[in-house]
């Protein structure tokens, strides 16, 4: 004794409505990206109407005054680049070493113990790293180099670079760890069958196989380093300084953005607008890095037909 009920019309409408509401919420992600892009783009265009784009990209002098402000961002880019390179010099070897240890050498117990500790490191707010860099690392560097007779600035690029590198270690190690573990075990077994030692297997088989994923992790770390704000705001300098010496003070894109937006300039003054021009550069560079990183990981997944990760 049962009857087949047709769906009521109101139910169908309700169901359609749900899907529409859900799809609308999904568009928020698109709207936000577009919002970020346009909010930066419009002000940046306004800035480039006032100042030359060419000089912005290649000029070596950046100073602001009431009558004549010059915006050549090359020293700012170079400062960002040097601090980022220092950060990567710390984080890539250590991060990769961590990933290899955790995925290959550590027994399950050690893995269970060390992974959450690395997650703690990843969870420390950047403002805390900034305080640590300014209070502990920077004076230590000044003392260390003072002992061998070299002068270092209290807001040296080295201090913020090293601390930033430590901040990025978990970024690189957790993604590399996932990738190394995803390499199919038949590769490993084949290497053992040929009589390779464990380390040789890792060095010559596993790491080359996982290379796209490792590159992806490093690019992600790179993007994270150039976009990092609090560490450099608190520990690096404010002065645009075109130099290769990591013991001198330098400034970065993010420091300049913060500095020009927390002052009391009018919103449409070139000082404020320059922050958006720098923001546009930052946006484009991180977006490109992220795209390349994603395409690398896709390559890895396709090669070994891995669906997770």
């Amino acid at each position, binding site marked *: 004794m049962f009857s087949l009920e047709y769906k009521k019309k109101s139910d169908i409408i309700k169901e359609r409505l749900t*899907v529409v509401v859900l799809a609308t919420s*999904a568009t928020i992600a698109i709207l936000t990206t577009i919002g970020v892009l346009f909010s930066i783009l419009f002000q940046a265009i306004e800035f480039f109407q006032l100042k030359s784009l060419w000089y912005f990209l290649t000029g070596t002098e950046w100073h602001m005054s009431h009558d004549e402000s010059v915006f050549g961002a090359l020293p700012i880019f170079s400062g960002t680049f040097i601090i980022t390179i220092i950060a990567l010099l710390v984080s890539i070897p250590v991060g990769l070493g961590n990933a290899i240890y955790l995925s290959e050498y550590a027994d399950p117990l050690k893995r269970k113990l060390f992974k959450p500790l690395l997650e703690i490191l990843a969870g420390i707010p950047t403002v805390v790293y900034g305080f640590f860099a300014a209070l502990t690392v920077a004076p230590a560097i000044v003392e260390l180099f003072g002992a061998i007779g070299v002068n270092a600035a209290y807001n040296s690029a080295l201090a913020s670079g090293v601390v930033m590198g430590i901040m990025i270690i978990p970024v690189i190690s957790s993604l590399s760890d996932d990738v190394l573990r995803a390499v199919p075990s038949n590769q490993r077994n084949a290497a053992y069958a040929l009589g390779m030692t464990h380390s040789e297997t890792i060095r010559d088989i596993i790491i080359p196989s996982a290379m796209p994923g490792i590159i992806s992790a490093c690019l992600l770390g790179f993007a994270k380093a150039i976009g990092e704000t609090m560490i450099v705001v608190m520990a690096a300098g404010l002065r645009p300084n075109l130099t290769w010496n990591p013991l001198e003070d330098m400034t970065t894109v*993010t420091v300049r953005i913060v500095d020009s937006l927390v002052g009391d300039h009018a919103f449409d003054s070139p000082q404020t607008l320059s922050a958006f021009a720098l923001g546009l550069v930052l946006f484009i560079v991180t977006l490109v890095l992220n795209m390349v990183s994603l395409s690398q990981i896709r390559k890895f997944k396709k090669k070994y037909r891995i669906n997770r990760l």
Partner: protein
Amino acid sequence: MNNNPFNDPGLAKRHRGAWLFKLYTKISIVFTLAFLSFFIFDMVRTAWPALWQTYVQVEVSYTAQSVKVTRKAIDRKYSKIVSRAWLRTIPQQVKDKPELLGTTQLRWVLADDQVDQYMKSHHHNLKSKQIKIVDDLVSKNKIKLDWNDIFLSNGDSKIPEYAGIQSAIVGSVLTLLVTMSIAFPLGVMTAVYLEEFARDNYFTRFVEVNINNLAAIPSILFGLLGLSVFINLFGLPRSSPLVGGMTLALMTLPIIIVSARAALRSVPDSIRQAGYGLGLTKQDIVKDQVLPVAMPGILTGSIIGLAHAMGETAPLIIIGMIAFIPDSPGSIMEAATVLPAQIYTWAGMPERAYVEKTAAGIIVILLILISLNATAIYLRKKYEIKW
């Protein structure tokens, strides 16, 4: 030995290489863990003195004159010893207890930050005359280090000994309430759409690319968005938890979406098929069967997103949440500051007394973050279902 066809003369060298390689990975993990422990040790060591605050016992005379000119309430020689902030509360004390007026009381009162730093044998700016007074007080047992309850019960102050994190905590709570009430429903709805309803078409793929990009955009650029859209375009109040919360919500969104999708994906298809077999509509299956099963996973991801938003500073600086806020904000429209922003402002203060306050604020924020993450792990362990 030499007739052994499996003998490899380079074997010893190969094993040494293997040993070296393993050593390198071990050194790197030891370095990481050593840094972590040194870092925590350094923070705790710096924050430790902030647990106590110096109090001195002086005679306070509540007269009509001292209510007006508060520094007259104490002996002149103690004017640099007693906290200015405490003296400012004298009119309020008299208002609360009118019978005090006209009396002279021997009371323990808050000491100046320089005295406090001297007592903790840090760097201080006391003159030799004042040091003599303080030493005299010490010998008479009229000065003591007492439990510092000001730190948790007071708001920010320009006078270091009177500064606390209460207003920053209230600001953080308000901001994160706004963040979660926007990011959680939006994130879960997006995840449900992408996992359960969406077909694999250009729109879906475009959404996915955008979510990936959102996760990679540096946080400071969200601050630029908040500044030019929420503040300049919509005209929302600057420095308010509303704007801060909305900005952080956009940053937290990708974290929640990704974890919610993973949670939904881990629900086995047999549950959905059983629902279809019983004649349920897709909507009912998702609402009554799939979502409840996936909820612990979604909550875990949201808590991790919340912890992320809690420690974020850069975008909030851009939208002005580093203002000086001595009193807790009453609503999400008032100017406020958040815990990490408070740490940033204190870190920039010239007075030595702020260093320990900053470190203490850091310990507070780390404790909150660790307990949030522990809750997430506990939830995951407790409700994890192995299919």
